């Protein structure tokens, strides 16, 4: 298992917390919680080691659009980059509802 931490600039506090997904094979859970300040902190725990660059690419793309200040925890059981992107977008959708 590998732990990855990434930080991104934020402009506004995320409206409310959201929990989506399950740590099942090929999937992941995402927990998004509003945070104070102007930074979004992402904590990733993944069962597949050695894909730090892929995670960074997915998160870079996600934060090109998302500007919420939040603490985001991702618990991953081997999801693909596509799954990661969808779960993150789903978490934002629930948070912004």
């Amino acid at each position: 298992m590998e732990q990855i931490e990434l930080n991104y600039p934020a402009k506004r506090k995320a409206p409310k917390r959201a929990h989506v997904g399950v740590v099942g094979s090929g999937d992941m859970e995402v927990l998004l919680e509003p945070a104070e300040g102007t930074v979004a902190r992402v904590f990733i725990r993944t069962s597949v080691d050695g894909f730090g660059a892929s995670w960074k690419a997915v998160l870079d793309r996600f934060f090109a659009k998302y500007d919420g200040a939040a603490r985001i925890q991702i618990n991953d059981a081997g999801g693909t980059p596509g799954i990661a992107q969808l779960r993150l977008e789903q978490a934002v959708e629930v948070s912004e509802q």
Partner: protein
Amino acid sequence: MTDKRYGANFIHRQSFIELDARERATALFDAGTSRELLGPFDRVESPWLAMQGVTPQEDDGCVVMKGKIAGQAAVVVALEGAFQGGSMGEVSGEKMTAALDLAYADSKKGIPTSAVILLETGGVRLQEANLGLAAIAELMGSILLLRKYAPVICLSAGTVGCFGGMSLAAGLASYVVMTREARLGLNGPEVIEQENGIDEFDSSDHALVWAIDGGEQRFATGLIDALVEDDTPQVVDAIRRFVGKGVPAVHRSTQVELFRSRIKALDTSRQWEPNELRTLWTAKSATEGKQ
């Protein structure tokens, strides 16, 4: 497709199996009455999995909810079959046991609180071996306490089913509800094949596996109380009905002589077919008719 087993409303069904543990638990309550206890944001996760390189889940694959079912106080504990095969670890076991113990305390105080346990599990989580075994033992003790005051209802909808130590927990329940897709057994087919060889049990023969462990067979031989379709309203109806029935006059697990005599009467010198057992062990000891 005119297979009558699937009825005319097949395509209009709202699958229960396709729901995750949290959605399943929520679906069972009277609308708007449920709240989750120790949810994912409380971050009570397994301390043992990360040490072994396994990603934990924040709720440890165990969803606990309190609310009302058919107007009565109830707690629902749902295992998430997709996380580590719904296996029982230290945290998930403790959450389940504590939920039942609180229901017991409330029931004793005069607020009968039913428990519904959603079993999608292979039993003990191997990474937490002895702690998982202890958890199941504690859970069985808690079921025995609570079931004197309020019904404990086990539901296995599938597709993981219920195996290992948790099948013993199901055996102690006041009522057991299954779908045709679910399986219930002590040793899973693959375990039996591994231990006793493919002649004993061919786990790749799905028709055989379901003919023995499947919900339809379990119902026909009187080992469970209701067989429901994979349809959320049907599942909810069955659970509401059993909550309403309250504590059964006789629990299945106390009918020791009945089950002993069944096994004793079997001529084990020949191979029995699952269908023959249905005529030999009728559903007469089951408390409910097929829906």
